[in-house]
């Protein structure tokens, strides 16, 4: 009997030993001086087809693969890219672009026809693109996309291979920003027509930007290499970019620590305090706002004074410093920092729209009670979508409202898609939401609360606001446009169908071996100009 036990024990101990052999040399950390960088996309990009991509992860890769008529340069400013010359008509409705000599990664020339084809493809109802509405600024685009118009009436025409004519519905002040956005990127017509699934695998994907597709193992990693056909390739130093798809925060943090990743974003909250002082650590503002929407059709939020009082009664500093902890900044308005205007940053031109003043807030509640004839403030339920972080913040707000305002708020949470359904139907009094601007301008932020915006779940409709926003889209003078947008935000913040909590931020650990990485306020880092020292 003993013998058997011992021999079995032998087996038991020998196997792991054998298994461990050869595990010694491992492949991680190709710590040489080659111009390669490995970053983390956290998940598989749902689509690398510029017509179908709707998320920032896909956009991150697409921005390295493709290039539009305009692009962002090293300092984040918009500059002409494929457009060599731009001619604007008197009425500012017609743009004629002369394209530079640019090539696709397969050697084909980039033609005006590729642009026309790409834009009409997005607008084609059969493509089912959810970002088609970003092209509604083009004449006839909306009608075609909604099935009421024909493709011939869409305001984009390739006059010849080098000349692209763009007709706008209205003069549009921020057209260059739009043209640098991925929905306006060209696609190679012959490649796309040949293979409907051209962007699904590394093999078929042909691009015209700084990088060309190299490998793509779904859900695992994706790599791109410098595009030798790129017209501006002399200014690109990084030879290869690899995106890993590691979703778990602790895991990608450990991969960064072991050198398997050169840059990570969104650190696990519990390591932020220990990394804060490290040279690798960076906090960058992110162009978005975390907020609580008020349903203005449900008591007590029918009264604007109650909405204002709630906004004034929470301590944003302690929410960002003690609860969120990721470098967020307290928000006292809707449009975040980051918009350059002729007179400096849009946000910095205005003071805070309200103060955190608990006494005044209490006073407002009393006034509201009197106006409405309430003996007690109607009970309030605060809703958020199920998540630990939202829960912590909601509990903080609940406590603050109780302490500072003497109001009891109950909490309720729902799983994301159910939550979207509930809030869309207006079955809430006060509910959490976040909003990030697709391009850095007050417009995509402020459009959120337009009366007919599907995002506006508050039932708040204000004619003056809507007409100011409409006016801002037609004005050509940038200073004038910003003035109108400020007025619109004034109207919004006067009525407060929502209360801002904080402006988002992004945090990073980036290996100090690299320089030249650009951190845009509404995108993941731009690695095109990165370089290993």
């Amino acid at each position, binding site marked *: *009997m003993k*013998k*058997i*036990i011992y021999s*079995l*024990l032998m*087996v*038991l101990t020998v*196997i792991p030993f054998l*298994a*461990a052999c050869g*595990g*010694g040399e*491992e*492949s*991680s950390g190709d710590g040489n001086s080659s111009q390669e960088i490995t970053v983390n996309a956290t998940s598989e990009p*749902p689509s*690398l087809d510029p017509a*179908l*991509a*709707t998320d920032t992860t896909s956009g991150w890769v697409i921005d390295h693969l493709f290039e539009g008529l305009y692009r962002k340069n090293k300092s984040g400013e918009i500059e002409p890219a494929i457009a060599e010359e731009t001619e604007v008509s008197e009425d500012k409705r017609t743009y004629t672009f002369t394209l530079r000599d640019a090539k696709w990664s397969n050697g084909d020339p980039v033609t005006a026809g590729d642009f026309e084809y790409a834009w009409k493809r997005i607008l084609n*109802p059969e493509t*089912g693109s*959810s970002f*088609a*509405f970003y092209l509604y600024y083009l004449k006839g685009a*909306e009608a075609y*996309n*909604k*099935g009421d118009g024909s493709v011939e009436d869409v305001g984009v025409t390739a006059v010849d291979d080098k000349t692209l004519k763009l007709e706008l519905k209205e003069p549009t002040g921020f057209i260059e920003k739009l043209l640098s956005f991925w929905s306006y990127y060209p696609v190679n017509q012959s490649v796309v027509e040949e293979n409907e699934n051209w*962007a699904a695998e590394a093999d078929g994907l042909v691009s015209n930007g700084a990088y060309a597709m190299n490998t793509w193992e*779904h*859900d*695992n*990693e994706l790599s791109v290499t410098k595009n030798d056909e790129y017209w501006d390739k002399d200014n690109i130093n990084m030879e290869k970019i690899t995106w*890993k*798809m*590691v*979703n*778990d925060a*602790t*895991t*990608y943090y*450990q*991969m960064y620590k*072991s050198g*398997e990743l050169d840059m990570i974003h969104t650190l696990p909250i519990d390591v932020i305090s220990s990394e804060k002082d490290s040279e690798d650590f960076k906090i960058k503002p992110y162009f978005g706002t975390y907020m609580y929407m008020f349903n203005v059709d449900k008591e007590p939020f029918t009264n604007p004074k109650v909405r204002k009082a709630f906004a004034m009664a929470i301590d944003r500093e302690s929410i960002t410093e003690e609860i969120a902890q990721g470098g967020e900044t307290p928000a006292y308005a809707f449009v975040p920092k980051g918009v350059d205007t002729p007179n400096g940053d849009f946000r910095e031109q205005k003071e805070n729209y309200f103060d955190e003043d608990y006494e005044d807030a209490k006073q407002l509640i009393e006034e509201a009670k009197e106006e409405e004839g309430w003996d007690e403030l109607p009970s309030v339920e605060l809703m958020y979508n199920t998540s630990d972080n939202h829960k912590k913040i909601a509990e903080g707000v609940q406590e603050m409202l109780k302490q500072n305002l003497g109001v009891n708020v109950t909490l309720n949470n729902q*799983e*994301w*898609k*159910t939550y*979207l*359904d*509930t809030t*869309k139907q207006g079955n809430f009094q006060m509910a959490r*939401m*976040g909003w990030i601007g697709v391009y850095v301008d007050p417009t995509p932020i402020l459009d959120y609360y337009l009366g007919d*915006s*599907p*995002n506006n779940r508050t039932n708040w409709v204000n004619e003056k606001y809507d007409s100011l926003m409409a006016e801002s889209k037609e004005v050509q003078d940038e200073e004038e446009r910003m003035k109108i947008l400020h007025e619109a935000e004034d109207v919004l913040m006067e009525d407060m169908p929502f209360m801002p909590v904080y402006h988002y931020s992004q945090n990073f650990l980036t290996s100090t071996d690299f320089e030249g990485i650009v951190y845009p306020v509404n995108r993941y880092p731009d690695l095109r100009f990165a370089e290993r020292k």
Partner: protein
Amino acid sequence: MYIVKRILTMLLTIWVITTLTFIIMHSIPGDPFASDADVLPEEVLANMRAKFNLDEPLPVQYVLYLKDLAQFDLGPSIQSETRDVNTLIADGFPASAVLGLQSLVIALVFGLLLGIIAALNHNGILDYASMGFAILGISIPSFILAPLLINYFAVDWGMFPVASWGTWQHTILPSVALATAPLAIVARFMRSSMLEVMNQNYIKTADAKGLAITGIVIKHGIRNALIPVISFIGPLAAFLLTGTFVIEKIFAIPGIGKYFVDSIFNRDFPVILGTTIFFSTILIVTLFLVDISYRIVDPRIKLSSKGE
């Protein structure tokens, strides 16, 4: 005859599962196209719904789905713009299966060994040690064990890469993390089964006849003790092969485990159905194989349908 009947029952089971999943899945609130960036005009939404047949009444959708299913087409994924459900599974299954197979082997080899050692050393030090280990294995959740393994074996000692997929080194830590709990269960199963068998009269008889103890343990003991363990291996194999959400997430493995969970949060109906059907098929097939292997281990067991 038995095999034909079994296959027909299997098909029927899959149909029932498909139908139930279809009904339950459509009764959860929420829209696959809803997002916080709810900017789509109704007309565009209608286009997208039409693309996935979601504009049809439910019974029609159901029939359309069964039609595709009969041709082994699990339909397009709503979430992934470019890959359909067949491709998602084809892309992800190999990684999950490699991981699952390795864990299965680890769990079986070490689990059986531990169980046998414990049983043969009943109430001895080795018995307590292996059962103590088994209890630890069952009670430490994999989402704790996995980061611990990473922390020591990858970050501190640099023996293996932290996570991701590609070389065989990448497979070791997740296999171990995934195998620990089933290993412990197998060990406990095997121990009690072995104890029972070793007390049987035929073992005593064999011993009395003066047969070598090694022969008795291997030929009579282990072989008979395996039967209850085999019935546990069927479902275990199905679970391990089809991937697990937690391990695949922590180790960033491109498997199919996450689709079981993510598809529900995304209301990605074709993926919910596809993964459920895929999992049930594997489960049903392994159960079938288990039934057949009983016969090999114990020829007395007859394969027959009920009532015959």
